[in-house]
């Protein structure tokens, strides 16, 4: 068979059923082979960036590896933002790019770009195929690397002559072993023991859970630990749903736009149990004042994250689920014997903070927070929520309480505007039985609005709840607070262009507009009835609403504006 056929056969062997992509010259052999595949369904997006985000959304919603493909040169460069987005958030993604023939690589051939060079800093690993017989191996390795350890993006660059060559196809039976790649999964026994000792001695503990808990499927173990010890839990943006935010032990999200009480807890705690989280600057605020009283137990599969930003008392390298199980096994008999650590005073303090500084929806007009709250109420908190980037993203995080992992999908590390719509398409195709709501920004959605066509033509029933504030709101907020309200180039001139309802309709999607609070419920109910394609609701909200509380950049975590 040809190299291209071997590529498709290898993808089938890896269990791939869905691929998002866009063809071009050097990908003709691959697309020709794909035409015959009975197992792989290919979705033609309208932009390669859309394909990468869709594959990413699929991966985040399902836990499987997302796959996208594009042609050489501009096709590959268009994928880059999506690849970087996935990699920053440790999402398993395999991107296959076409490349010019090996004999002309390096000659500035038509549509040649150095894809492995360009993507090198934003991937977990990449390949340039130089021998067609390698293809099955490379695919197997790529899936192994993308999906194990700390997951990430892997790019496979396929020169067109590799695709055209004849090879004998044989998929390796045994998983490849790579000499330089052996993720540590089991935690170090002595460290786990030490962690257990600190846990039993803690007076003001907190569990700080990140995306790693979701990735490793450790939510059950985390909940068991938290409930057994009665420890409060705060989560990062990517950790939303790792622990049910509806639980009384939940503090919601922490950090720059986290709840006041979560941030106060971090500043007063004497023990942080960090699981699958990386003390990002949006979480810690000013580093030298962060969590001054805390000992830190840090559980992460990536050793490089441990001790990177914050000094750690007990480092535990390992898979979150495995380590939490080991920790539970140690702690259970101790708790049974001597009871859980006494947290009465701590919980009383937390209850007071919660009472004094709740998240509230402001009154008057159509408030974005109200829209999110209504989406939450009408979906009974069960929808898969996919956001763009900006204020609406933070309001979604604050007001849409996630109760299970993979329910809240958002570009955290890279903060990529334009992620939401294509990612929601990928998510919906991955979990078609779930209701999927894309909470979008009027700025962000225009970065990939062409994917409305993809949703319409593939009958992808996502609800696009557009929080239309007429501004690049998050940037405007910073200008308001830190630049004297000098709104330099953040005004989108709502009402002049585009008309989002007409835009949706032009693509064959349904469009609605809501400008009054009373209109929100009926519009959402109407939208949720639609099962055969996307619906866009243009929510005309208050223009200059701000996201509070807010820890100003470089400020200490307990120094919150509006908190």
């Amino acid at each position, binding site marked *: 068979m040809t190299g291209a056929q071997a590529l498709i056969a290898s993808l089938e062997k890896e269990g791939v059923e869905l691929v998002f992509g866009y063809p071009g010259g050097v990908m003709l052999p691959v697309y020709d082979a794909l035409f015959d595949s009975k197992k792989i369904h290919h979705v033609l997006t309208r932009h390669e960036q859309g394909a990468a985000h869709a594959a990413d959304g699929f991966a985040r919603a399902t836990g499987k590896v997302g796959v996208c493909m594009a042609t050489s040169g501009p096709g590959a460069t268009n994928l880059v933002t999506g690849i970087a987005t996935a990699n920053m958030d440790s999402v398993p993604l395999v991107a296959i790019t076409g490349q010019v023939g090996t004999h002309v690589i390096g000659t500035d051939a038509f549509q040649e770009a150095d894809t*492995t*060079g360009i993507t*090198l*800093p934003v991937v*977990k*690993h990449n390949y*340039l195929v*130089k021998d067609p017989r390698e293809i099955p191996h490379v695919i197997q390795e790529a899936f192994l*690397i993308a999906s194990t350890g700390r997951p990430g993006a892997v790019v496979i660059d396929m020169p067109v002559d590799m695709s055209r060559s004849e090879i004998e196809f044989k998929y390796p039976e045994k998983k490849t072993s*790579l*000499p*330089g*790649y052996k993720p540590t999964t089991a935690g170090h026994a002595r460290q786990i023991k030490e962690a257990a000792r600190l846990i039993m001695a803690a007076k003001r503990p907190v569990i700080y859970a990140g995306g790693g808990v979701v990735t490793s499927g450790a939510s059950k173990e985390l909940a068991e630990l938290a409930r057994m010890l009665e420890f409060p839990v705060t989560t990062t943006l990517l950790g939303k749903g790792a622990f049910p935010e509806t639980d009384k032990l939940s503090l919601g999200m922490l950090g720059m736009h986290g709840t006041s009480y979560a941030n106060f807890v971090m500043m007063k705690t004497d023990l942080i149990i960090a699981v699958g989280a990386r003390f990002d600057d949006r979480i810690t605020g000013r580093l030298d004042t962060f969590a001054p009283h805390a000992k830190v137990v840090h559980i992460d599969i*990536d*050793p*490089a994250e441990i*001790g*990177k930003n914050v000094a750690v008392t007990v480092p535990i390298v390992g898979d979150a689920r495995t380590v939490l199980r080991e920790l539970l096994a140690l702690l259970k008999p101790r708790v049974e014997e001597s009871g859980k650590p006494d947290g009465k005073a701590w919980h009383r303090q937390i209850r007071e903070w919660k009472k004094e500084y709740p998240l509230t929806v402001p009154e008057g007009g159509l408030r974005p927070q109200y829209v999110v709250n209504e989406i939450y109420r009408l979906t009974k908190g069960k929808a898969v929520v996919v956001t763009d980037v900006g204020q609406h993203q933070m309001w979604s995080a604050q007001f849409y309480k996630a109760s299970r992992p993979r329910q809240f999908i958002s570009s955290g590390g890279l903060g990529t505007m334009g992620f939401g719509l294509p990612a929601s398409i990928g998510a919906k195709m991955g979990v078609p039985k779930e209701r999927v709501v894309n909470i979008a920004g009027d700025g962000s959605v225009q970065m990939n609005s062409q994917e409305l066509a993809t949703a319409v033509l593939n009958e992808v029933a996502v609800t696009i709840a557009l929080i239309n504030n007429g501004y690049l709101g998050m940037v405007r907020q910073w200008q308001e607070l830190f630049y004297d309200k000098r709104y330099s180039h953040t005004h989108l001139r709502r009402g002049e262009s585009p008309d989002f309802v007409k835009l949706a309709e032009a693509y064959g999607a349904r469009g609605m507009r809501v400008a009054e609070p009373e209109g929100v419920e009926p519009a959402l109910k109407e939208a949720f009835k639609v099962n055969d394609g996307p619906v866009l609701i243009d929510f005309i909200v208050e223009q200059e609403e701000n996201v509070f509380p807010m820890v100003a950049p470089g400020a200490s975590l307990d120094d919150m504006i509006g908190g």
Partner: protein
Amino acid sequence: MKHTLSVLVENKPGVLARVAGLFARRGFNIDSLAVGVTEKPEISRMTVVVDVEEHSLEQVYKQLNKLINVIKVVDLPDENSVQREMVLVKVKADTKARAEVIEIVEIFRGKIVDVGKGTLSVEVTGPSSKLRAFEDLLRPYGMVELVRTGTIALPRG
């Protein structure tokens, strides 16, 4: 602080770019970098001298280990390793200075590898400190060109 790292890598295309790119991207300063194959042709050894604080050294070490093609990273402290570097230097040496230059070269157990009109080209190997001392002694005569290989190192014992 200078640290000598010995990095064993799979001998695959692009591996040098991966390692060099990592240093650039994460803002680690490289003093020198030397690459060559080992006793096993599929494995190369990169000897990297980095100038970083203790905390960053740990990051360098961990980030290098995250590269798929990196098999092993070892920190080689001066006292537990043999470190060598080579310098080739073309120094001005007219008839008057020539004898003195040759004497210095001999003290450093160097070799004269080329003789030009009014210049000598000299090869010296040794730890970096020795090469620096050698350079300092030659500088007054006027160095026309100089090139160093970067340190290579092996653990002792």
